[in-house]
């Protein structure tokens, strides 16, 4: 591995993280998922330091974007808070496992999560409200709500609450284990399982990501995963990219970018497998 001084290293990592944050926000896939492979594959950073830096940047982008999402009126604080019980407990389990599981196993799990993220970009974003019934848990926990649509307020009723809660704890484990936001899995839980409208699940999940990642952060600190001088360019870079992305986003997300980003993610997935099998 070539050896860089702090200035060059920080600038390169800053640039790479900015690109990750930009592509992540433009495609809606989140930048966190490519930050870890970028740091480990391109810069030879230990995967534990990489996960620590990525986790912190995930908190930054999720919290920074929240106010913009909130104003659109889609997010549902009750669904978010209810599911955060599952994601935060999962995150503690995942972060604790990250301190025990050998690095090469983490590489392989990461590879699978990357492949999954790439495929999730092409899943249909159409809401499917067939066979929607009144769900007793959704009613009990006051999860049903409405969101602004072209024809006025649109109501939705949440389905299969216990199953969705379970998938969210799994999302929390993955987030804590790999230092990623786990947004793609959270959206699946909410969108596919619980039949929450796509816009509502996407914005609510963004709210949840910061809290979920914060639950892992305490354990990452204790295990020494958070290296301040490495976190610095990653966090600032991803934030810059996400900020620029949010400004550009207003003009529809492009299909070309999605395909490009997915190809990058798939290549990274195979690199992660290769690292894990070394």
């Amino acid at each position, binding site marked *: 591995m070539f*050896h*860089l*001084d*702090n*200035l060059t290293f*920080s600038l390169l990592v800053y640039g790479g993280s900015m690109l990750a944050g930009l592509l992540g926000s433009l495609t809606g896939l989140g930048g966190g998922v490519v930050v870890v492979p970028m740091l480990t594959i391109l*810069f*030879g*950073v*230990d995967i534990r*330091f990489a996960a620590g830096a990525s986790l*912190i940047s995930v*908190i*930054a982008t999720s*919290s*920074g974007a*929240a*106010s*913009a*999402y*909130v*104003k659109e*009126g889609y*997010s549902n*604080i*009750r669904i978010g*808070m209810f599911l*955060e*019980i599952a994601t*935060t*407990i999962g*995150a*503690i389990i995942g*972060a604790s496992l990250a301190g025990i599981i050998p690095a090469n196993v983490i590489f392989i799990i990461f590879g699978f999560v990357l492949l999954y993220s790439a495929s999730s970009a092409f899943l249909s974003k159409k809401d499917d409200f067939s066979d929607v019934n009144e769900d007793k848990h959704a009613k009990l*926990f*006051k999860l049903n709500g*409405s969101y602004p649509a072209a024809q006025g307020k649109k109501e939705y009723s949440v389905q299969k609450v216990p199953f969705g809660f379970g998938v969210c704890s799994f999302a929390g484990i993955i987030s804590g284990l790999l230092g990623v936001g786990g947004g793609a899995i959270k959206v699946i839980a909410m969108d596919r399982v619980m039949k929450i409208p796509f816009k509502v699940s996407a914005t609510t999940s963004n709210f949840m990501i*910061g*809290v979920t990642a*914060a*639950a*892992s952060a*305490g*354990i990452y*600190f*204790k*295990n*020494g*995963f*958070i*290296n*301040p*001088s*490495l*976190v*610095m*360019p990653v*966090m*600032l870079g991803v*934030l810059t990219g996400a900020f620029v992305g949010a400004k550009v986003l207003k003009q529809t997300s492009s299909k070309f970018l999605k395909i490009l980003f997915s190809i990058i993610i798939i290549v990274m997935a195979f690199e992660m497998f290769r690292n894990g099998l070394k």
Partner: protein
Amino acid sequence: MKNNAVVNEKLDFKIEIILGNLLRIGVITAAVIVLFGAVMFIIRHGVEYPDYHLFISEPFHLNDFSKLFSGLAAFKSIAFIELGIFALVATPVLRVMFSVFAFLYEKDYMYVLFTAIVLAVLIFSFFF
């Protein structure tokens, strides 16, 4: 008599706006502190060579803030970056704390409980 089972969506929306702004202020504050530390770090250590390839665990315990404070007093760049990282991690925790009071204000005691559970999990993760 107000029916507690009915969700007041207007009030919810207002609370979410406040929460969203709270998060944004937290992130901006954190980023500014980290940036300050970053500039100092690059000026002082720019030509040194880092080694992130080797994992050397330097555990940081949250009950050991004295080291951070002495670092800040000595104007160490790393201490400022650390402070910014703490400010950032504290931001979502503050949001959850604020939500406890927001649900209390709405008299939604079920969600006061749920939010308190999330807060307890977060506090547990930092101090256990």
